[in-house]
């Protein structure tokens, strides 16, 4: 199971990668995409939308199931991965890379401490 050490995670299988200036990108983990199977649709929010931590910001649908996306942290959406509209399978192919879902502005960096690190997430993703 691929769980990069430089990311933070939620129990609901999102990852968040910190960039500069309190910006970050968010996606779902390799474990999540593998559990869902073939992803056929990703509903993304609008740029400018604001979410509280644990708020639902979108949906990932696979042939088997629909799964809500939860924002790891209080945030405003700066950009969405528009490639996913035509190629949602990128989430399967590259969950931590080209399959990213949103770019956000973090409102309260202090909340990052409440997220899981790779070791903590590995426990959650044990099946």
């Amino acid at each position, binding site marked *: 199971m691929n769980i990069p050490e430089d990311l933070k995670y939620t129990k609901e299988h999102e990852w968040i990668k910190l960039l500069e200036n309190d910006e970050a990108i968010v996606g779902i983990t390799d474990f999540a995409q593998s559990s869902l199977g073939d992803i056929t*649709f990703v509903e993304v929010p609008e740029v400018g939308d604001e979410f509280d931590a644990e708020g639902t910001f979108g949906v990932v649908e696979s042939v088997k199931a629909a799964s809500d996306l939860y924002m790891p942290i209080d945030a405003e959406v700066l950009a969405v991965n528009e490639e996913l509209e035509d190629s949602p399978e990128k989430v399967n192919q590259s969950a931590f890379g080209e399959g990213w879902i949103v770019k956000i502005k973090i409102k309260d960096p202090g909340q990052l401490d409440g997220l899981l690190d790779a070791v903590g997430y590995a426990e959650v993703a044990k099946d």
Partner: protein
Amino acid sequence: MSKPRRTPLYDFNVAHGGRMVDFAGWEMPVQFKSIVEEHKATRAAAGLFDVSHMGEAIVEGPQATEFLDFVLTNHIAPMERGRVLYSLMCNEAGGVVDDLLVYRKAEDSYLLCLNAANVAKDVAWLQERAADFEAVVTDVSDDYGLIALQGPKAFEVLAKVTEADLDSLHYYWFVEGEVCGAKCIISRTGYTGEKGVELFVSPSDAERVAETLLEVGEAEGLALAGLGARDSLRLEAGYSLYGHEIDDVVGPVAAKLMWTVKLKKDDFVGKAAIEKAKAAGPEKRIVFFKTGSRRIVRADAEVLANGEKVGHVVSGTFSPELNEAIGSALVDSDAAKADLSVDIRGKAMPLFAAKIPFLPLNPQA
């Protein structure tokens, strides 16, 4: 719930990476690598499916034919030996007890292939009604593993491991022969819309047959496929699935399966109710739809027309061939031609009436 049962191919499925789920009381692979890839491989080359969860029953005796013509909707008497026939088994109200395949093995001997979830119900139903006939019904589900080999390359793959005359094996006929050295029934049938066979094998031979087919099929592009692909393949082909398009209430008139019902034959269970439904028109009917969207409309979603609820979705999946979500719904007959939509998480999504099969298919080729 009792512990799910395992098919003779359980170890094979697990060894090949099958993601096992509980389906109709059986531990079955929903997928191996990818439902979409398995689906595409079956349409482009060939797919190999474990469908050993399906049940089998033998019906035999001097009045086996009369009995089956009484409990089934299709016409059994004209079947030649070696023939396969799709039929419904209806209840008195014209609903469906099960849909099944009938194999005429001899003048007085038939094999039935039944839906896994319905085997116990079907056998009890049949045995109860067989009491009035010189016919005996025996559940022989444990005597068979069932392997489906489906796709345009299915016969090329099969020809490598059998001496059976495949050229003369026509659609909805079967032969008894050997595959990979194992005695089996080779049935020119399937549930994918592709050319292919279903192989009834002894449970002790099942793993060897599956392993060999997989090995010799690799060069032809054969892929192991799970129940996920089986469902998307059958829905693209427009085939009904028991518990979805048909059930103990929704019968052949509503489900547009009247081609399996021979109203001209003598009395049979459900005939009067079906005649009545046909004359009056069913209250509800099955419609198939496309969506123009990749977003899957799932079973049980409410179907709306002019803001009113007129029915619900009974099957929904993603069509890898059309690259959009497709499905079927049970709707009020007077709304069947209206502009239908479903509400998905607060968004109205239009449904577009579709003809079946959803794409050109020719399993008889």
